[in-house]
């Protein structure tokens, strides 16, 4: 019994630690954290301003944006800017083939394929550096320390000043990368808040059940032993 508990504690520690490669400075990455709505709204603004020129977001239905509480006018303006003729059939071409053709991948699920999805996106977007002298870059490639292989065909997309916040401030590249990483985490896992809420409720219910059931069983044993 004791061994079981020790094993469980180790497993628990293990999987809390398991996503620790890379930066983990988003609130929703901790076991009890939820999405920060303002981060995600900001990330949506960054996506529209800098990423939407090339990258699609096919797996995100319009109704999901209602959970961001943007307001009907903002939602209508987002929908109006989407050019339906250019939206391609996601199933027609497998993801990896599209990437090999050096065409921009769809961003809806991009954070799913990495152990630390938001960290990967953040590192990629903030990883552009001047090329080291001894390195030979392929034509049309850029040097990015956050990309596996360090050479990426995507130009640095985040322009400081492309997004203006409500108080007039214009965030820099790091802040924009942080928010767009949070936004893409939301597109990949919109159920995160529900998941943690349901899981947390289940744990509380089971603990209460366990305590009540345990007391019942012990009480019954006490009565039974008394009768013997």
């Amino acid at each position: 019994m004791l061994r079981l508990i020790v094993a469980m504690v180790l497993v628990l520690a293990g999987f809390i630690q398991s996503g620790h490669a890379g930066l983990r400075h988003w609130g929703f990455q901790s076991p009890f954290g939820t999405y920060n709505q303002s981060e995600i709204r900001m990330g949506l603004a960054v996506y529209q301003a800098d990423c939407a020129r090339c990258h699609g977001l096919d797996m995100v239905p319009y109704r999901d944006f209602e959970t961001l509480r943007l307001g009907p006018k903002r939602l209508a303006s987002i929908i109006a800017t989407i050019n339906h003729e250019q939206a391609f059939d996601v199933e027609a071409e497998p993801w990896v083939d599209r990437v090999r053709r050096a065409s921009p991948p769809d961003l809806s699920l991009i954070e799913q394929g990495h152990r630390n999805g938001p960290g990967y996106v953040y590192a990629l977007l903030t990883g552009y550096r001047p090329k080291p002298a001894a390195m030979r870059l392929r034509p049309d490639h850029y040097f990015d320390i956050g990309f596996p292989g360090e050479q990426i065909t995507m130009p640095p997309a985040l322009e400081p000043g492309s997004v203006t916040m409500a108080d007039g401030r214009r965030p820099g590249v790091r802040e924009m990368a942080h928010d767009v990483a949070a936004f893409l985490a939301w597109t990949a896992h919109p159920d995160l808040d529900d998941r943690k809420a349901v899981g947390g409720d289940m744990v509380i219910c089971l603990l209460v059940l366990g305590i009540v059931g345990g007391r019942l069983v012990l009480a019954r044993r006490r009565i039974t032993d008394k009768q013997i």
Partner: protein
Amino acid sequence: MSLNERSASPPIREAAFGLRLREVYRRYWRDYPVPANLKLTWSFGVLVAVSLGVLTLSGIWLGMYYRPTMGGAGLSIAQFSHDVPLGWLIHDLHRDGSTMLFGVVYVELLRGIRYGSYRNGRERAWIIEVVRFFMFLWVGLYGFIMTGGADAYWIARAMERHLTAVPLLGPAMAHICLGGLLIGNATLPHIGFAHEAMGFLVLLIAALGFAASRAAPPANPDGIVALQPDNLVPQFPAYTGTVLTALILFGLIFAAIIAVSPSLGQPPGNEIIGAPLGAPVTVTPPWFLLGFQGLIEAGQRLGVAGWFTVTASFVLFGALPWLDRGTVASCRYRPLYGGFVWVLQMNWIVLSIAAAQPATGAWALVTTVTGIYCFVHFLILTPLITVLEPTHPVPLRITQRTV
């Protein structure tokens, strides 16, 4: 009416229920005589039943929306999680339900080895348990391939090579499993249907295993074969607390996994849709298959085909009652062999970890050594140690009564 009295059912109700379900429930479940010193792990059979129930129900729902095409499979699952109300929950229940099932099954098997529940009249039950374990792994492998992710695609390609390498039966097995000699458009429909069909077959095998286990002399932690009647108690209410504890711990772990880390134990590269032109750097199956991946790798480095290694490992595992030549069943009274069982357990964990790493250099050596050790344990260590070891005397009556 005191708590100890069992109420006799009125004859009218009994006649109305032609099947006499109440009598069956009482005789085979509530009042069934079990040893009085069973530990928590003896309640894991109930957990297997719960896991199978969760997997079956969530699987039925997932199956309604699943699209068995090469590119469409992963997308259909992602769309199911996004668009169907509580689809994410059903998907997580199925994926993490398989993790929970294998966690429970591995602990159950280890408990069987440790307390000698495979011998002394329980051989048939043990063999059915090993067959059940094999079927679980097969269904789990198929379920993983059905996800359509990058790891899944390349694991299917590896399976294609292993199947066609089987002498005589190879091409026929490839046709049955993959719908052709190579992976193609017929593969996922074949695998999808086989997964569902075998899933239901597994329920039958699990039920058979339960019946076989009940028909055999009851296993107990002391390994006593002939239990005195006063060492047996009706299963409930004696073990109500134990079963409740097991269920609640199971539920807590399940809820924690779904809440915090639903892709626990799954290879991260699998979230990308699989395709022929790109492969993840390291292709790994889910955690419960890693040990067997390691065995296959170790065998291949020695020139033995993968299918042979896996078949041999299951044959040896099932032959354990005959490989164990000792007189004492439970490792409580043969601590030397018990120590080696613990070493086998650690060895399996190290083998699984090593199999998940890129197969170069030091990790390849670790995989080979730990893989070979598994076979050494069953073929050499078990017969030798169980015969030569000095054992403690086994009591005639059970010790450490827990209820």
